[in-house]
């Protein structure tokens, strides 16, 4: 059933009351686009990979959903799920780090801020890492560093392309210098993956900042970004403080980075899997792929799809 049909059917059953509508938003049945405020039936939004059907805005997607979008059905094999953060500094700000970790684990059902595993993407075997912004802002501590390092090392050993979907505020301060050093550790693993002439593609999603930008996010052989994602090294407010003027329009957006030569292409989420598959095939040794069957995806962001159906005229 298309969205149009769905609305047509829905209309027949009569208008929905405002109360019921609010209840259904709370239940997650409906989702409001944070860009155009249009309400969409969540099921349809998910079918469109959480890209607003009306304005093309990319809503946040977390690790489970992202893995579903990228990995072929039943091919995801998680690795290193047993790694758990400790509190080596006995860190305490407004809360203890241990309490913060426990709360985050309960709230998100995740153990830490990244999921790693082996999967197939359009039947191509890949090593896949997906960061999760819900878990302490996707911050990188020892566990994130270790899991990504092991993932890349496995990629090198098994000669797999590595794909990392980035979403992170940077280093995890609660682990102090241990967290800063993960930047070097992961970059070291990437240096070996590179020496083995294997392909690494980071996908920069909203937001990718700080120590993640200053390490594996910027080390791709090819770097892809999602439309309008915030990508930068220094925090926006910090940069603002060094200036006496306002920051330019679109500063630190994916489009800004494309313009300045730091990402290769902005790929709408609905095109991401296809684009990755095409790039991986293109970079496989000539013997393994048909050299003429390859068509690289249109790299420019496609305009938002407008369905022409009725917008959410819910009263």
């Amino acid at each position, binding site marked *: 059933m298309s969205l149009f049909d769905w609305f047509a059917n829905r209309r027949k059953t009569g208008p929905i009351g405002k109360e019921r509508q609010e209840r259904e938003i709370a239940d997650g049945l409906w989702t409001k686009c944070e860009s155009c405020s249009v309400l969409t039936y969540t099921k349809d939004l998910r079918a469109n990979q959480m890209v607003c059907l009306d304005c093309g805005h990319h809503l946040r997607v977390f690790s489970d959903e992202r893995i579903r979008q990228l990995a072929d059905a039943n091919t995801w094999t998680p690795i290193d799920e*047993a*790694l758990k953060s400790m509190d080596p500094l006995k860190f305490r700000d407004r809360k203890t780090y241990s309490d913060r970790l426990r709360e985050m684990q309960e709230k998100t059902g995740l153990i830490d801020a990244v999921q790693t595993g082996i999967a197939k993407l359009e039947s191509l075997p890949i090593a896949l890492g997906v960061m999760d912004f819900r878990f302490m802002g996707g911050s990188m501590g020892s566990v994130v560093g270790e899991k990504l390092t092991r993932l890349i090392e496995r990629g090198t050993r098994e000669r797999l392309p590595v794909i990392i979907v980035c979403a992170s505020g940077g280093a995890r301060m609660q682990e102090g*210098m241990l967290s800063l050093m993960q930047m070097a550790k992961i970059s070291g693993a990437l240096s070996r993956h590179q020496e083995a002439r294997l392909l690494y593609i980071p996908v920069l999603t909203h937001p990718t900042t700080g120590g993640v930008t*200053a390490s594996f996010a910027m080390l791709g052989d090819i770097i892809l970004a999602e439309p309008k994602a915030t990508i930068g*090294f220094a925090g926006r407010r910090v940069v603002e403080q*060094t*200036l006496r003027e306002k920051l330019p329009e679109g500063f630190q957006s994916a489009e800004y980075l494309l313009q300045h030569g730091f990402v290769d292409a902005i790929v709408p989420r609905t095109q991401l899997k296809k684009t990755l598959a095409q790039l991986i095939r293109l970079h496989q040794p000539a013997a393994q792929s048909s050299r003429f069957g390859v068509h690289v995806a249109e790299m420019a962001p496609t305009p938002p799809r407008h369905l022409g159906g009725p917008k959410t005229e819910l009263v």
Partner: protein
Amino acid sequence: MTSAERKPILLDFEKPLTELETRISQIRELAEENDVDVSDQIRQLEARAVQLRKEIFSSLSPSQRLQVARHPRRPSTLDYIQAISDEWMELHGDRCGFDDPAVVGGVAYLAGQPVVMLGQQKGRDTKDNILRNFGMASPGGYRKAIRLMEHADRFSMPILTFIDTPAAWPGLDAEQFGQGEAIAYNLREMFHFDVPIICTVIGEGGSGGALGIGVGDRLLMMEHSIYSVAPPEACAAILWRDSSRATQAAEALKITAPDLKQLGIIDEILPEPVGGAHSDPLQATEILRKALLRHLEELNQMTGQQRRELRYQKFRKIGFFAEMSA
């Protein structure tokens, strides 16, 4: 470096020491005026002053160490390079259109051996600090650094880096020219080099800005230098929403050399003269030079492949986590 006519800059925790020294000179003046022998008394007081200085500097809190690390008279990268090398020539430019004054480097002889030395350069006075951007490097600075390191690797010269920066420059221009990419590129490339790499934190090691020249076979720290994931002031603003909690942040973040040695992040702490490196720059230089030569001698005996493996394993094992049994 320091000269007799320059008045010392004293830190607040050195106050008891200043008071004692003032008293000694007062007594000495009085004695001279009245022609009495107080040499015994003075000797005692002087011994007390030495003792007091030792006590103060052996029990500095993290935030006091931060003050020493940021001391305006603390020897800088150029001070050390000039003092430890037999000869040296500064080289300029990143070959991409910039020559960042916040990063200096060049070719040198160290005890007769050709080396490349480089590091962040803070200003020696206000005017110099503005020129040097307070030691905060731009992308061009990191690209200059890697260009010099690639040069070193090509000509088989060991690389010695000196870390002294509050942070990478967080300006609009830096973002535009790819601060993140510049640092990231250095992190990966430094793992590729065959030549020995020794990195020494001489003052302030501030976050990714420091790490951008900090991937080595050895990571050394001067006794009162600090190395932090983020400037304690910034950390306090983020975690406590209050930048005046910097003292507390400095404690919590574990930024001192002894803490980082214990966490397995650094290899060695280089002792400083009592009173900090700025109180006796010549002695500090000698300590640094000897340590660098000792580590170089060890590293020179390995093959390039062995050094790369050592470097990889050194970073590979950093981190604390639990691995639950499945």
